[in-house]
């Protein structure tokens, strides 16, 4: 468990160093995810070894957004008259984005004859 966490942190650190070193537009953890993925492809045993810890961590992923969410509440009253328009823009665009994304996926899958599973 400790070694598993240390592995994840090491990849995050590697990602941060890469992101800053090469001045990439992606945050360190996202690069760390890509590096860990590539490492697992080369060395499949790693994925099997740390899977128990990552399953637990990802099973509680929602929890990790709570502190940032609480910070948001302090800003909500600032929007005043723009609040309703912002709500419509955010809810509306999220509905549109999920609809367009999912329909495009299914449409292309049928077009290219990729199997449904």
């Amino acid at each position: 468990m400790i070694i598993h966490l240390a592995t994840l942190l090491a990849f995050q650190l590697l990602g941060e160093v890469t992101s800053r070193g090469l001045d990439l537009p992606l945050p360190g953890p996202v690069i760390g995810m890509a590096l860990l993925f590539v490492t697992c492809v080369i060395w499949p045993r790693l994925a099997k070894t740390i899977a128990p810890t990552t399953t637990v961590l990802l099973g509680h992923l929602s929890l990790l957004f709570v502190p940032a969410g609480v910070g948001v509440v302090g800003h909500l009253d600032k929007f005043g008259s723009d609040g309703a328009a912002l709500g419509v823009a955010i809810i509306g665009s999220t509905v549109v984005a999920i609809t367009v994304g999912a329909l495009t996926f299914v449409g292309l899958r049928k077009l290219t004859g990729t199997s449904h599973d």
Partner: protein
Amino acid sequence: MTEFAEIWTYLSTDPLLWLTLTLAAYGAGDALFKASGRKPMVNPVLIAVAFLAVLLQLTGTSYATYFAGAQFVHFMLGPATVALAIPLYANLNHIKKAALPMIAALVAGSLAAMLSAVGIGVALGLDTNILLALIPKSATAPVALGVSEAIGGSPSLTAVFVITTGITGAIIATPLLNLLRITDWRARGFAVGVASHGIGTARAFQVNETAGAFSGVGMGLNALLTALIAPIIAQWLLG
């Protein structure tokens, strides 16, 4: 016996209290979510955030004090993002088979998120500086904040939009995708990850492991695409 005020003075300056309450509030939210028969409206993040926000108000606690405790939870977002590589790897065969639909859905979903937000905002008369902060809202928080700053938006406004978008996606995804009669877990997960980043991905993992993995891929790819496309949309908006 020690006075309550004295105990409170100790607790209110110690990270322990707010760390405990963050976990307890989420635990309660999760219990309510399960008791409701996993209804998407009963979102554990939303319940925990609302409860803690009210508690901070009532006790007159600043966000900085709260965050001194909650930062230990917040910190785990980094390693959790790295951990998304594992379900991604486990679904490698699925992903290889669906490469083309994924790329198309990424471009379409990402553009739809940014353009429809700007379009609705313009139609409802929102200021340009608010519109700029809205553009990257579907990307994962660290990317969205960086992009917002780069295109001249306000990162703190963007932070609010990112979280709101994530919670919106987590709540509407299941009823919306059922309404559209989309049964492919890959399509469902991927679209949710592109539109509503990590909070959507967390929700997708609650529903289905494959959906969660594809949502994680969608989130990662859209972080990259948003960083590339948002400056172009911003330029077009200002031009």
